């Protein structure tokens, strides 16, 4: 099998908020078509790490290398970089003053600058993909949380990103709506989308993840393929964490 391309490489990444050192010497690698699940308790730094990847948080030092190129907000056009890195937020963040369709074509028409009719075509295909083709002209306030999150996924996909970041995509959802979003994400993974997912859904991480990264207190404590990580964790911290989450 030919070797997978490295999409993201992080070296010795550090980040502090004032006195609080939230990311400590993070080293990480995301390979093309892989699904990397970031897990760990709240405050362990996993969301901050994710946000550093598309520069919503500025790193203090270390390297972020995306598709072979080291990215620094001072020297590169961050907007261009972000076009290639999609992001899905915990609270969806759909644009409430726009319909579902307008939400999806907004960035393609104004950033990628493709013709509107082409953007609409692509948006409709994406809506079929996330199973919401009947919601084209509806405003987000009329959708359930799960539907909103699937629109948000379609919106991110409309920019044709090389990698998709998910920041606790199901944490704000009612329990019965979690499944539909996870299913959509699983289908994306099967299509070969490269994904980094911050999640508390252990079942999803085990089933869909290609690589599990466990963070605690700003450090990566353990990272391994899910078969190894869940059945045979090396670190004491990991064992404790898995024990508490399996109690649910």
């Amino acid at each position, binding site marked *: 099998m030919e070797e997978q391309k490295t999409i993201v490489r992080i070296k010795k990444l550090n980040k502090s908020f004032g006195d609080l050192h939230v990311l400590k010497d993070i080293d990480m690698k995301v390979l093309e078509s892989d699904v990397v699940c970031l897990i760990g308790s709240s405050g362990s730094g996993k969301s901050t790490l994710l946000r550093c990847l*598309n520069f*919503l948080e500025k790193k203090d030092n270390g390297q972020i290398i995306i598709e072979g190129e080291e990215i620094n907000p001072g020297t590169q056009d961050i907007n261009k970089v*972000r076009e290639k890195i999609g992001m899905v937020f915990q*609270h969806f*963040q759909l*644009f409430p*003053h*726009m319909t579902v369709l307008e939400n999806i074509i907004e960035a393609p028409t104004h950033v990628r600058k493709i013709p509107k009719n082409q953007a609409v075509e692509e948006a409709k295909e994406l809506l079929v993909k996330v199973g919401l083709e009947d919601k084209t002209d509806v405003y987000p306030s009329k959708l359930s949380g799960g539907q909103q999150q699937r629109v948000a996924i379609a919106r991110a996909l409309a920019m044709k990103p090389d990698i998709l970041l998910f920041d606790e995509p199901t944490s704000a959802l009612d329990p019965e709506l979690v499944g539909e979003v996870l299913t959509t994400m699983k289908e994306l993974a099967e299509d070969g989308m490269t994904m980094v997912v911050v999640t508390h859904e252990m079942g999803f991480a085990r089933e869909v993840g290609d690589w599990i990264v466990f963070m605690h207190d700003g450090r990566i404590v353990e990272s391994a393929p899910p078969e190894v990580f869940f059945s045979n964790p090396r670190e004491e911290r990991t064992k404790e964490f898995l024990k508490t989450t399996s109690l649910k």
Partner: protein
Amino acid sequence: MPSFSHFFETLTGSTNVFIDAMLLTLELTAVSILVGIVIGLFFALLKISNVKVLGYISDIYVYLVRGTPLIVQIFILYFGISGIFLLPDFWAAALALAFHNGAYIAEIFRGTIQSIDQGQMEAARSLGMPKSLALRRIILPQAFRRALPPLGNQFIIGLKDSSLAAFISMNELFNVATTLGSNNFDEMTYLLIVAVYYLILVAILTLLVNLFEKKLAVSDR
């Protein structure tokens, strides 16, 4: 107090003069609100920019306007600026009112812009939108919608404040009412008449703002 029949006769007998005055009041109000919105948006954007100095400039402007009476501002513009270059009376009054409304409108816009969830800006930026585009397409439309109720309030205040232009001899509603009142030794009747005109104008303005609010509220339905 004048009798009702006298009030009614005077009201119907003076419509010609009052309609002209009302048009002038409307022009003053329209110009001062439109220019005030532009000024207000400009200073609100200065305030929310990342450059501290620009924020201070905005603070000073708002402080100066809110800290001095409108009539003082009108006189300063009328006597002061007209001494430097010729400013038609209408524009002295309209610009003073715009400059005044602008400060309050700037505060309204600043508040509503800052009330939009920061995640909206992050979502827009994560799609590759530059900050200016994200502001224009995502933040400002939402902020403007939220600003409508307080803006409507400010428009009403602006309409009534235009009566102060009477003091630089603009023949707007209030001036016409006091002049006619003293000429006819009948102040109270004319003051009641002018009150009716203001009430009608405010009713129309309120209706327009409400209509506009409803139109923009589609996304909530």
